[in-house]
């Protein structure tokens, strides 16, 4: 008997589709909550997205108690404490995060403080420190990429100490994730493309990584198909609500997949590049994805080849000999990136970013080796290997 083993866990209720926002008051009510605090950022509020949420509350008999809209791009300890103060002063009983990764991570930090009645977030940093459920927590993603609405981690920076504090707990998972096309309809094309490639990378690394399992595979392959089919539709017609919803669902599905199967070398390199050059995470994923797949191809060609079906459809898959499917899958991703570069100027190589010099590559390779995701890459990576991938991505 095989000694393989896996775990899969996702207790987040997904509320998705037409008029999904209007389900929030009911969902809060089922959790005995009625005084929500909305946490968001200036960009989301400026784009008018909070108005959709407020409209959903307007006829429900439930009010939003307050809106905190000053979350910065990098979530920080100070902001978390500030929001926790507002939550307590206004006697809120639940949190609704409306935004991308930073807003969601910040809200998770706030939920720790207000639920544990604490003031020092660092006391709760680490794995499994939280031992009981937190306050009702809803997430409305406004990008289709991070998958943070279904992950049990948060990273909050402490600028005074110059460290990033990780938090990992089942209790950080939101109670409800709301996917409503209205919330991503106005996302500009280049951000749509970057975040979609982030979700694509989550799904592909989950499917090809060491910790893959049958249940996360199902989520990953569905997500890949949805992104491959609907990203071109959205770029052709940005107000296509159906295609937007498909991308939002794909992002959540990819999030479920990678939070159970982890990610690999694309993320190790991407986290390092993001930290060193302050490039958006989705862009970093887009940069490294085909080069890492090529690195993994000799040992993982069969698994990568299976993805051709979801990336290019049944006809291409059937017409490609089995031993060539891995290479073909990588070629499809390269073609996709060329198209995104043509339409949105999304860089495909390190040199195209204009943000990094070649003499920084050894440092980048060393940083990637210290990233936790590297252990889940299906093929071992040493310093020379990482540097070789970076040179190919140059």
């Amino acid at each position, binding site marked *: 008997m095989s*000694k*393989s*083993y*896996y*775990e899969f866990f996702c207790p987040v209720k997904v509320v998705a589709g037409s008029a999904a926002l209007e389900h929030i008051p009911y969902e809060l009510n089922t959790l005995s909550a009625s005084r929500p605090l909305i946490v968001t950022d200036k960009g989301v509020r400026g784009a008018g997205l909070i108005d959709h949420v407020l409209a959903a509350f307007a006829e429900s008999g439930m009010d939003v108690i307050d809106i905190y809209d000053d979350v910065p791009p990098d979530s920080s300890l100070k902001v978390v404490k500030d929001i926790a103060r507002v939550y307590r002063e206004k006697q809120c009983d639940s949190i609704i995060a409306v935004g991308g990764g930073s807003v969601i991570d910040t809200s998770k930090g706030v939920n720790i403080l207000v639920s544990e009645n604490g003031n020092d977030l660092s006391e709760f940093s*680490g*794995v*499994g420190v939280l031992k009981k459920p937190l306050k009702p927590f809803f997430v409305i993603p406004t990008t289709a990429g991070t998958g943070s609405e279904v992950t049990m981690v948060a990273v909050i920076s402490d600028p005074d100490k110059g460290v990033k504090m*990780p938090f990992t707990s089942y209790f950080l998972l939101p109670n409800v994730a709301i996917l409503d096309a209205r919330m991503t309809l106005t996302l500009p094309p280049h951000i749509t493309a970057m975040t979609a490639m982030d979700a694509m990378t989550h799904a592909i690394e989950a499917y090809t*990584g*060491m*910790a893959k399992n049958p249940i996360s595979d199902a989520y990953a392959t569905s997500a890949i198909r949805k992104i491959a089919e609907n990203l071109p539709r959205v770029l052709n017609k940005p107000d296509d609500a159906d295609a937007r919803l498909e991308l939002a669902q794909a992002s959540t599905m990819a999030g479920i997949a990678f939070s159970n199967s*982890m990610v690999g070398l694309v993320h190790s390199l991407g986290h390092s590049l993001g930290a060193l050059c302050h490039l958006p995470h989705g862009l970093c994923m887009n940069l490294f994805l085909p080069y890492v797949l090529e690195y993994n191809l000799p040992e993982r060609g069969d698994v990568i080849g299976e993805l051709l079906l979801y990336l290019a459809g049944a006809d291409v898959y059937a017409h490609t000999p089995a031993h060539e499917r891995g290479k073909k899958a990588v070629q499809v991703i390269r073609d996709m990136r060329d198209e995104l570069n043509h339409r949105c100027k999304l860089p495909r190589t390190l040199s195209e970013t204009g943000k990094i010099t070649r003499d920084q590559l050894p440092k980048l390779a060393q940083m990637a*080796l*210290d*990233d*936790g995701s*590297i*252990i*889940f890459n299906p*093929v*071992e990576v*040493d310093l020379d290997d990482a540097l070789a991938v970076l040179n190919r991505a140059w």
Partner: protein
Amino acid sequence: MMQAKRVRVNPFKRPYVVLMMEVIGRSLEAASQVDERIQNEVRPLPDGLMFEMKVMPDGPALVLQKTGATGLKYLGRRPPRKPDVVMKFKHVTHAFLVFSFQEATARAFANDRILLDGEIAYAMKLVRCLNRMESLILPKIIAERALKRYPNLSLPEKMLGGARIYTQVAKNLIRG
């Protein structure tokens, strides 16, 4: 109330894990004294960093601390303070699978057998130290089971590297 039925367990499993914790702790200490690649991994770690590998909840353990510029000192089975980085096996069986080379360390991570607490970057360096040490001291046929990829080591490099670590372990034991 029905009494929980007594079941037979492998009587060698726990003592074996205890022994292997000791062997790994002492071998890593010795390897950090003689192997340049391990020293290069240890050098960037903060002074005094304490690392614990343990079986949950309170099972066999090993504790190492960075001393000097590149050294790791084996402190025994109990940490004198809260360690900075902790690698926790969820069950003694999971540690046994890894220490009996039925499951590679990376596979154990992928199979959710191990929890990591503390700064991940430091943990990754220590995992690489462990991999390097195993590649030198274990016979190739066993090291291939313990590692994701067996490194490209020449026979003299492996023999000499392994011998230096074994000798250093002996010296450290004699010195106490």
